[in-house]
């Protein structure tokens, strides 16, 4: 039988509270609880993978059950301590919550809870991956969890506390395990490397520590791969070769291609990286990290907060970020994140990354856009973009080019109109302008309709422009028998077409509202009298007495008769 080899992550599992790296708040709190004899009966340990939840649970179990009494420093030598560490103690039951997730298993557990521990002080149930228990299983546990026998302690560990019912959460003391800082991971890795008798470059270990992203076990699994691969010395090249990650130079050059909107260049960067043995999924994650660091640098974080970038690269990254702009960086992050999310579902990793890079190269300079908008809002006359925009196809409407044309218009008007639709305004300012007045409205309407080519014109012909409710806002009315045509014209795409045509005629942005005329007036009156009638009616509706009458009788105004002698005596009639 071959001698068994145990992986680094297991051999260097912390065995006491002092060994526990990066979780000082947890070990202090638990230590104090033990010393003051105030240990709770149910604990919940949450946190990302590999930060020490299971290890802490075992240490706590040892601390409580060690033969030297409940102590903050378990001896680690007594029979109990050793069997807990190896996970096969009779009184410390470590249960895999994901495999024993049903109500039957929990019922079984409950029936055993009342049996006293066989040799130690407490019977301790450690349920790992507790988030996988079913709802029924959780509910079956509730009563036991609230008032367990004095000899029972529960410790739950999970990476996913959101999945645990609130009723369970409220019965547990919860400890959130923070991600371990890269510096602490690095220190631990150095210790392991020394103990294993292998030399290692400091930078190589640094890459490992950062790559682990706060998880001690990740870093140790990665180190394990390197230990088995490199016999004498661990170097930076080994790390990249083994992890399938790209050198930081590759990332920088890739990012600069993206910032120059050089899609072909970016695609060939991928190709080269792949031929060097870089894993495309890793590359995507690294790029995400790179732009995340860039984002942090732009908003003013210092080099300490970088997750991936070394201090020497920091200033270059910040300069690059400032020329890219925060809005664009955020958009880039979003695209990359979406692409990585898709990679979880689809095996076409490389295609997905390529698509993401091309998308990024298609991004407009978003910061310039927001600057232009800010300038327009402020009403300042100087609208030239501050930076030269990178080479772009310029097919989208959002490109800032047309904006400089608008200062020709009067400032007072411009303020309101530009807010509504800057690009449209700027296009129209090239043409002649025609003011809409009650006198010209009819001819403008006819001219506009004659320019519309499709069926919209046929429907719009039944209408009359009747009022100007606000500057550049037209009320178009239909006779009640033409309601169908009105509804047709109201469809967004038809309405847009009409507004477009009006804009072409008047040279201004015109909004159109449609309404149907009341029946008896439609045939009798033309534009002018209708206008005054309607206005009069609105006025009447505002009259307090009429208002009240309408409320009391749930009435509506159907007819309006001019009073001869007394005022507002018979102007309304109820139902």
């Amino acid at each position, binding site marked *: *039988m*071959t001698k*068994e*080899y145990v*992986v680094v*992550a*297991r051999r260097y599992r912390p065995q006491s509270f002092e060994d526990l790296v990066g979780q000082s708040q947890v070990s202090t709190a638990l230590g104090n609880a033990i010393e003051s004899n105030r240990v709770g009966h149910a604990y919940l340990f949450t946190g*990302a*993978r*590999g930060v020490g939840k*299971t290890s802490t649970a075992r240490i706590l179990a040892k601390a409580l059950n060690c033969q030297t009494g409940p102590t903050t420093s378990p001896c680690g030598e007594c029979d109990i301590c050793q069997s807990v560490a190896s*996970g096969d103690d009779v009184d410390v039951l470590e249960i*895999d919550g*994901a*495999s*024993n*997730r*049903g109500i*039957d298993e929990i019922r079984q557990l409950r029936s055993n809870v009342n049996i006293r521990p066989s040799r130690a002080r407490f019977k301790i149930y450690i349920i*790992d*991956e507790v*988030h*996988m228990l079913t709802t029924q299983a959780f509910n079956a546990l509730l009563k036991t969890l609230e008032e367990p026998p004095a000899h029972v302690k529960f410790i739950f560990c999970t*990476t996913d506390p959101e999945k645990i019912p609130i009723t369970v959460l409220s019965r547990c003391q919860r400890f959130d395990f923070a991600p371990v800082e890269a510096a602490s991971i690095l220190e631990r890795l150095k210790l392991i490397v020394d103990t294993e008798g292998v030399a290692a470059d400091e930078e190589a270990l640094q890459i490992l520590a950062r790559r682990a992203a706060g*998880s001690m*076990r990740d870093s140790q*699994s990665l180190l*394990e*791969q390197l*230990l*088995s*691969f490199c*016999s004498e010395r661990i170097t930076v090249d080994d790390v990249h070769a083994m992890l*399938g990650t790209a050198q930081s130079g590759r990332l920088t050059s890739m990012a600069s291609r993206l910032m120059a909107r050089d*899609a*072909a260049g970016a*695609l060939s960067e991928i190709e080269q990286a792949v031929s060097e*043995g870089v*894993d495309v*999924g*890793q590359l*995507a994650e690294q790029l995400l990290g790179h732009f995340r660091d860039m984002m942090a640098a732009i908003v003013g974080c210092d080099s300490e907060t970088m997750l991936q970038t070394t201090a020497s690269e920091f200033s270059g990254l910040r300069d690059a970020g400032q020329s890219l702009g925060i809005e664009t960086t955020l958009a880039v992050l979003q695209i990359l994140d979406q692409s990585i999310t*898709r*990679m*979880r*579902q*689809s*095996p*076409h*990793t490389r*295609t*997905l990354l*390529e*698509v993401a890079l*091309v*998308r990024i*190269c*298609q991004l407009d300079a978003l910061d310039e856009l927001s600057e232009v908008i800010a300038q327009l809002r402020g009403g300042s006359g100087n609208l030239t973009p501050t930076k030269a925009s990178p080479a772009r*196809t310029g*097919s989208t409407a959002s490109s800032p080019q047309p904006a400089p044309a608008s200062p020709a218009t009067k400032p007072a008007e411009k303020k309101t109109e530009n807010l509504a639709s800057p690009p449209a305004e700027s296009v129209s300012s090239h043409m002649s302008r025609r003011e809409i007045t009650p006198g010209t409205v009819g001819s403008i309407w006819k001219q506009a309709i004659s320019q519309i080519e499709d069926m919209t014109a046929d429907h719009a012909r039944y209408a009359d422009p009747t009022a100007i409710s606000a500057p550049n806002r037209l009320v178009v009315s239909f006779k009640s028998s033409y309601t169908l045509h009105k509804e047709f014209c109201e469809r967004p795409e038809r309405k847009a077409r009409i507004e477009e045509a009006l804009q072409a005629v008047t040279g201004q942005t015109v909004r159109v509202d449609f309404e149907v005329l009341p029946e008896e007036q439609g045939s009798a009156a033309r534009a002018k009298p209708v206008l005054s009638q309607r206005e009069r009616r609105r006025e009447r509706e505002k009259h307090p007495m009429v208002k009240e009458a309408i409320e009391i009788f749930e009435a509506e105004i159907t007819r309006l008769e001019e009073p001869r002698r007394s005022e507002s005596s018979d102007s309304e009639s109820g139902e």
Partner: protein
Amino acid sequence: MSWQGIEGHDQVVERFRRILTGGRLASTFLFIGPGGIGKRAFALKLAQSLLCERSADEALAPCGDCPSCQQVVAQSHPDVELVAKPKDKSFIPLETFIGDREHRMREGLCHNMALKPHGGRRKIAIIDDADYLNQEGANCLLKTLEEPPPNSLIILIGTSEQRQLPTIRSRCQIVRFKPLPVKVIATLVSANGISQTRGETEALATLSDGSMERAVQFAEPELAEFRQELMTRLGKLFERSTGFAADVGAFVDAAGKDAPIRRERLKLVLGIAADYYRWLLHARTGHEVHGDEVLARVLQQSPVARDADAVAACVERCLDAQQQVDANANQATLIECWIDDLANLMQGTRA
């Protein structure tokens, strides 16, 4: 150079040789690489050499004669657990790992691994199709992966790291398999009698993208023909076309009566389309296009799309459709929606 009949993965062999020489064989591995490049064959071969009664571990040279070797080859070795996704399921069922409801933790892979090895050396579990572990399945492996029983080796086989839970990734040693070199594919294709002429061999080798699976698929003459037709029609797809959808549907139906076979065929078709748009995207950005003659010809004929965003969206639409196939979407509806969406997307790109 090949190892025990496995071509193109000498680097991985070298790595395992070093691991075994150093006596640092970890207990959990995750094999990553595209489909059809020999990961499973490699895992089985590795199992054979680790269980062989006549040769030492670090030699990595199973004798092939001893009962142990023969049992591994016949896939009947009591110490080798081989788990894969059943053909008619879209994921690996939970029962495979922890047994059914009546025999929870008294059956299944996790239980079997906890038993002492029959032959006395070690237990080896190979979990193929690890991409298709669902939440429950992956989670119930966690404890076994973290602290496997003594003398056990668990190998998960998947296509990418991103498809695994972070908790699984953190517990595994990751081994990357590269796509096979074109030359290797060409040799394998002609040696196995998949292609007859030399031109055919070369065409298949370029098409394969380093995957034997793909090479074998494209060796079917009808598929090659359909591929050409599909790409040509996609190049002209600017308007809704029910006829097109019907043709695709007919081709998928021709695969057979069983739903799993049809689903595989449809995924293949969607893959071809995704590839086409991917290369269209490359052509659009001015990047070099690697592909066979058919693709080059079709790309030449298809009008240069103006809007790269739309082409990118087409690629994603094809990949989404592939997932929808896995999610058991109705085949006819899926194809129609897919073609409609593509047409709508491409409509905007026409000059």
